[in-house]
């Protein structure tokens, strides 16, 4: 470690360190990794396979013999970086008065980080405080036990001085755990009408050199095949996911995790099936969707689709996009010579799942979320503090959790503080990830606030000299038959004037602790996306000229925040589809090491998205709420790929790799030309 008084000085010191490397042959791609004579990333392993997962159900053999149409497509989704705008950072110091190591860190999982640091540093959890204050976005990036944080914490203890590290963008693009890097081969077996009877998929995931603790490598492959059947009623299935290691940074979950790949898998195949059967891409999907009356629907990949109307969402998207107008435009041709295409993607998103056998525990994750805690405390002056184990880094929990308290207790949301991110002052929860906070922490907050009603009623009825049953709570006041008292008086009585309290009072008083157990299989939000693109057939560039989303996450507690999550996710998905790639040369050197090379979408790339909602509450979640955080990012690669390939259809070209860069489109057009003249 190079430690200096300023970051510049630390870099000066680091520049003086000379390291002699013995260069070993690198494994740079999943294909290399799988070769029998490949160099071994981990010498004590026999091969480069991290985990090999299989998932099967139904009678696939029977399906294959009954099938009239067989569609096979292969797809490559290249490596990406989550690219939170704020890089990673930490500062650690040892508090000698409390005999406690205090670590400030940009992170979305403070408790898992505390647990990991504790194990690695040999400092018990009691003596290790992790504080994750304002965090400049994360999307899954800032979830792992980072070696830099370990080093900085160790140095702070050793030197007995505060030590800080702030990552720069160059470091971030070179050594952060990055994401995606998949290949999928999907085969659908359908009857004469295009009803898919069975599906096979083989997925390979390049997991980089390690699993970043606490995420197990199995999570990506498991999710990829576990969600490959999509919203469709498919009764036979075989899936296999091989996670390999390579000499790249650890691969880890990023917004959507493997579902953008599953989505491309099932949606590209659906479009291909539509063409072969001779029907409209909307119709083929309507023929295959799980129907509302079939729900809750136990899928062949062990998902229980709880509620929703996939067909209605898709039909509405088709209306918003105005498919007939797009088809007419395609026929007419563009004055500038660009090719127009339209593509759809329908998918579900499993959110807020728990201890069930088909989720975290199955994938071997170190920390399985169980009961989600929340503490609600009415203060001496009648205001409310909510403490949660989730983490808000842009999601607006400060607003929406206060809203929940208002819904239950009638308290003005401006009189509610939401506290998170400090392992010493917040209840122990696993943090914010996999679109769980609204359901889990939201459920816990509702329960905690409900639990506060009893002591408020007790004290209120005593002060108002009436019976509990005669009291109502609303607008931050307690109303009895002859008057009312405000929460401040309730607080004053409990904290300052116990002589004014009734004889029988629960000792927990005005502090309520709740643990909410969400429905273990999770609850399933879903969306339909529709994209219209214009492809320049000479340059290969793709412009998204129209886009529609119909999303359903059940009850929306704060519609504006939900919209923000979807549009934000959409921009990440669009980046995945068209721009973003972490590239490596054939020696494994990263080549996208600045923001000039790693290209993320800017405002001109984002069309005016037509966004509408359906609200089909989940029967399995409190207030019918479903998670939504990752939803927007899942659909765009599939919708845009389908649209681009629709545009390129007259040229008999197709692109089955993301990002769909201008260079790849040109290459596809050139390949089609030479195939045509061959």
């Amino acid at each position, binding site marked *: 470690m190079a430690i200096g008084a300023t970051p*510049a000085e630390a870099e000066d010191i680091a520049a003086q360190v000379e390291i002699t490397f013995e260069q070993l042959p690198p494994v740079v791609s999943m294909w290399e990794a799988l070769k029998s004579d490949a160099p071994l990333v981990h010498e004590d392993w026999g091969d480069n396979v991290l985990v090999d997962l299989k998932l099967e159900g139904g009678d696939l053999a029977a399906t294959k013999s009954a099938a009239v149409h067989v569609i096979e497509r292969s797809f490559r989704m290249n490596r990406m970086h989550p690219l939170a705008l704020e890089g990673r950072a930490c500062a650690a110091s040892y508090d000698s008065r409390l005999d406690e190591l205090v670590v400030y860190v940009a992170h979305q999982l403070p408790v898992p980080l505390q647990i990991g640091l504790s194990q690695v540093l040999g400092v018990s959890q009691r003596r290790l405080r992790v504080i994750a204050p304002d965090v400049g976005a994360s999307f899954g990036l800032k979830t792992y036990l980072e070696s830099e944080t370990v080093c900085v914490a160790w140095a702070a203890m050793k030197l007995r001085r505060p030590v800080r590290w702030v990552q720069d963008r160059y470091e971030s693009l070179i050594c952060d755990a990055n994401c995606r890097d998949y290949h999928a081969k999907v085969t659908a077996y359908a009857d004469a009408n295009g009803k898919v009877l069975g599906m096979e998929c083989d997925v390979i995931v390049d997991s980089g050199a390690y699993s970043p603790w606490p995420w197990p490598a199995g999570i990506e492959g498991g999710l990829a095949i576990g969600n490959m059947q999509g919203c469709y009623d498919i009764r036979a299935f075989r899936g296999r996911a091989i996670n390999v290691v390579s000499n790249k940074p650890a691969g880890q979950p990023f917004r959507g995790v493997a579902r953008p790949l599953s989505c491309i898998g099932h949606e590209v195949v659906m479009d291909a099936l539509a063409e072969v059967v001779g029907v409209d891409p909307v119709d083929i999907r309507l023929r295959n969707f799980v129907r509302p009356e079939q729900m809750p629907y136990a899928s062949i990949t062990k998902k229980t689709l709880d509620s929703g109307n996939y067909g209605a969402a898709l039909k509405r998207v088709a209306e918003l996009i105005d498919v007939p107008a797009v088809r007419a435009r395609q026929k007419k041709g563009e004055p500038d010579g660009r090719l127009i295409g339209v593509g759809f993607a329908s998918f579900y998103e499993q959110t807020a799942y728990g201890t069930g056998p088909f989720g975290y525990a199955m994938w071997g994750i170190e920390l399985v979320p169980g009961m989600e805690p929340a503490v609600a405390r009415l203060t001496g002056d009648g205001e409310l503090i909510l403490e949660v184990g989730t983490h808000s*880094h842009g999601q607006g929990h400060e607003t929406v959790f206060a809203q929940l308290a208002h819904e239950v207790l009638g308290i003005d949301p401006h009189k509610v503080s939401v506290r998170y991110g400090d392992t010493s002052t917040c209840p122990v929860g696993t943090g914010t990830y996999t679109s769980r906070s609204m359901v889990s922490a939201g459920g816990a907050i509702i329960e905690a606030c409900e639990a506060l009603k009893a002591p408020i009623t007790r004290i209120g009825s005593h002060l108002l000299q009436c019976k509990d049953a005669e009291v109502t709570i609303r607008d931050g006041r307690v109303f009895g038959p002859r008057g009312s008292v405000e929460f401040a008086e309730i607080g004053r009585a409990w904290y300052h004037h116990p002589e004014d309290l009734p004889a029988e009072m629960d000792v927990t008083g005005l502090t309520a602790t709740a643990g909410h157990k969400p429905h273990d299989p999770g609850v399933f939000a879903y969306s339909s996306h529709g994209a219209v693109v214009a492809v320049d057939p000479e340059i290969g560039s793709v412009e998204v000229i129209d886009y529609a989303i119909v999303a359903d996450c059940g009850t929306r507690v704060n519609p504006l925040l939900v919209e923000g999550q979807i*549009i934000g996710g959409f921009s990440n998905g669009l980046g995945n589809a068209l721009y973003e790639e972490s590239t490596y040369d054939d020696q494994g050197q990263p080549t996208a090491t600045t923001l000039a090379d790693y290209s993320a979408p800017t405002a001109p790339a984002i069309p005016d998205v037509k966004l509408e909602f359906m609200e089909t509450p989940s029967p399995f979640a409190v207030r019918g709420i479903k998670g939504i955080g990752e939803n927007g990012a899942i659909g765009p690669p599939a919708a845009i790929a389908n649209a681009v390939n629709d545009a390129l259809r007259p040229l008999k070209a197709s692109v089955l790799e993301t990002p769909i860069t201008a260079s790849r489109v040109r290459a596809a057009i050139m390949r089609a030309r030479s195939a045509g003249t061959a």
Partner: protein
Amino acid sequence: MRTINIRVNGKLVSRAVEDRLSLADFLRDHCLLTGTHVGCEHGVCGACTLFMDGKPIRSCITLAVAADQSHVRTVEGYQGDPLMQAIRTAFNHRHALQCGFCTPGMLATAYDMLSRIADLDRDRIRAELSGNLCRCTGYLSIIQAIEDVHAKHVATAASPLSS
């Protein structure tokens, strides 16, 4: 080391600094004005954008010594400025920030385009925002907030330093 004198948010700041120190780091570490954010240190992401001598610039690739004798306005320096107040209100109403890391740069760019350009439609707003990266919002709420303010305010020759 040399002593530089910069008027930061109207107040004269005099400090001894290394020649290689960036303006962004000067403001954050020496002036403790941490509203200026550093996202890339190569002038691409726009998070560090602030006003120097009346124009938006990238503070991550500007040396503090190069800002000697200049007027610098950071996101903390708009007390009472009606245009910035209108922009902030619109950002709030439209949920034009989530994590907030890009926001100081977005506010500076918004302030610049609203002051400088009379004819702002959504596509022009997009073009002017092309140097400010956001990963959270997907930009549409930011574009809408700026459009809201533009509808109410005509571009003026207001100096961002007037206070």
